[in-house]
């Protein structure tokens, strides 16, 4: 499946990037068992109050209409599917991806089947990815669109991590989120292994989980990642802005 890569040279981080462009490198939001409308309203208020538009606001499918009512017109929304374990049948993942599109959500992540990954069933992983990519990949490839496949990097050894990424590639996936968060954290070693094996053009790489400070975020961006998922996004963006304002070397 020959597709143009989603990674463009100008999407990589570099010195002098504006604060707003920097902010668009981050996903930020409220998800999970504890997510409520009240908490979501509070967090959106914090984000809008900070005056910086992140790449997308992360929420749950059931909260998309509510979130849309709080965000400015056209503000991107991101939802996870089968999160965080990929524990539903592949056809249901594809169907839910279609429903995200129906809601106007063009930025999603889908958890790979954790048990298949732990068991080394790479053909199954590739088939799962292909199912959703063939059904909806073109729909998510437009402006602002992202169809990310969540690779559970922390629980795989390096060889399995690379096999898993290769399976995503075989299935037609071009965007990978490395770890879901929710207890699984990315590491520089995982990202370095992926770039060493696949180069910087095969995947748009989104690290996730455990990224809590400015230095960590910058390190991943300098490695060639384009987008970061972290609940600390507002603090990291504020630190970038402070350094730029005070003339402190950014990288």
């Amino acid at each position, binding site marked *: 499946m020959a597709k143009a890569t989603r990674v463009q040279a100008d999407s990589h981080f570099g010195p002098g990037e504006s604060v707003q462009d920097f902010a668009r490198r981050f996903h930020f939001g409220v*998800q*999970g*068992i*504890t*997510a*409520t*409308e*009240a908490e979501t309203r509070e967090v959106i208020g914090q984000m809008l109050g900070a005056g910086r538009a992140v790449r997308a606001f992360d929420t*749950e*499918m*059931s*909260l998309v209409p509510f979130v849309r009512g709080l965000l400015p017109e056209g503000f991107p929304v991101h939802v996870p*599917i089968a*999160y*965080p*374990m*990929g*524990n*539903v*049948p592949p*056809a*249901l993942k594809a*169907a*839910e991806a279609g*429903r995200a599109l129906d809601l106007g959500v063009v930025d999603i992540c889908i958890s790979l*089947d*954790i*048990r298949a990954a*732990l*068991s080394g*069933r790479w053909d199954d992983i590739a088939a799962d990815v292909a199912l959703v990519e063939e059904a909806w990949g073109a729909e998510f490839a437009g402006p602002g669109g992202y169809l990310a496949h969540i690779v*559970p990097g*922390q*629980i795989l050894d390096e060889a399995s991590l690379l096999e898993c990424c290769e399976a995503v590639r075989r299935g037609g996936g071009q965007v990978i989120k490395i770890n879901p968060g*929710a*207890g*699984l954290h990315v590491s520089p070693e995982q990202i370095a292994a992926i770039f060493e094996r696949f180069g910087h053009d095969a995947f748009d790489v989104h690290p996730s989980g455990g990224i809590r400070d400015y230095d960590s975020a910058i390190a991943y961006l300098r490695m060639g990642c384009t987008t970061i998922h972290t609940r600390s996004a507002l603090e990291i963006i504020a630190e970038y802005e402070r350094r730029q304002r005070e003339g402190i070397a950014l990288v």
Partner: protein
Amino acid sequence: MNGVKGRASPLSESVLAAALPAYNMDDAALRGLLDLVASRGLGGVIVHSRDVGFAAGRLAGSPIQVIAAISYPSGANSRIARQEEMAGAIAAGADALAVVAPMGNWRDGRREIFGQILEDAVAGAGGRPLHLILETCLIGDGELDALLAAIGPKISGLIATTGFEGSDAGPDIARENARLASCDARAIAWSDPATASGGGKRHVIGVAGSDELERCLAQIAG
């Protein structure tokens, strides 16, 4: 069921093994767990909806219930997705469902959404046993009675936590079991694999493999 004859006992039959660990169960571990569930004659096994067909095939011919976890762990996917997941699980051979309650809706006071999801669950179970998984640690003492009243009598069993690894909920399992049991006779104790604490009429044991299940069964028996 692999030619393994069950050795059921009243204690064993009271136990449901929850094969729902987030990040540490591969195919071999699930097979081993299912075989032990069969050999010990447990009451049932709760599995991800994706695994229902596999579990049903492995346990075919046994009286052990295959219980599908639905909307696990967040309880926050779309209504249609939840309905499809239930229908798919039943079609794949689920004998019962364990549906994660939408605690966010309850905490927001969105009782109409909470009620709709319960009605969907009852309909989805189609008369089969239906368990509800509640994160009771997310609601106050005063609200627990109100929540149980809203749930009504159509739910077979109530489980005090998802037991999800990585959840922010972090429930004190023994305390939440006690709270639920004090309010409702249908409460099923979630037994901590580390301590096998529980005390309810039935136990749910969240385990990642057969060794862990053996230890818990021994602790419960002891």
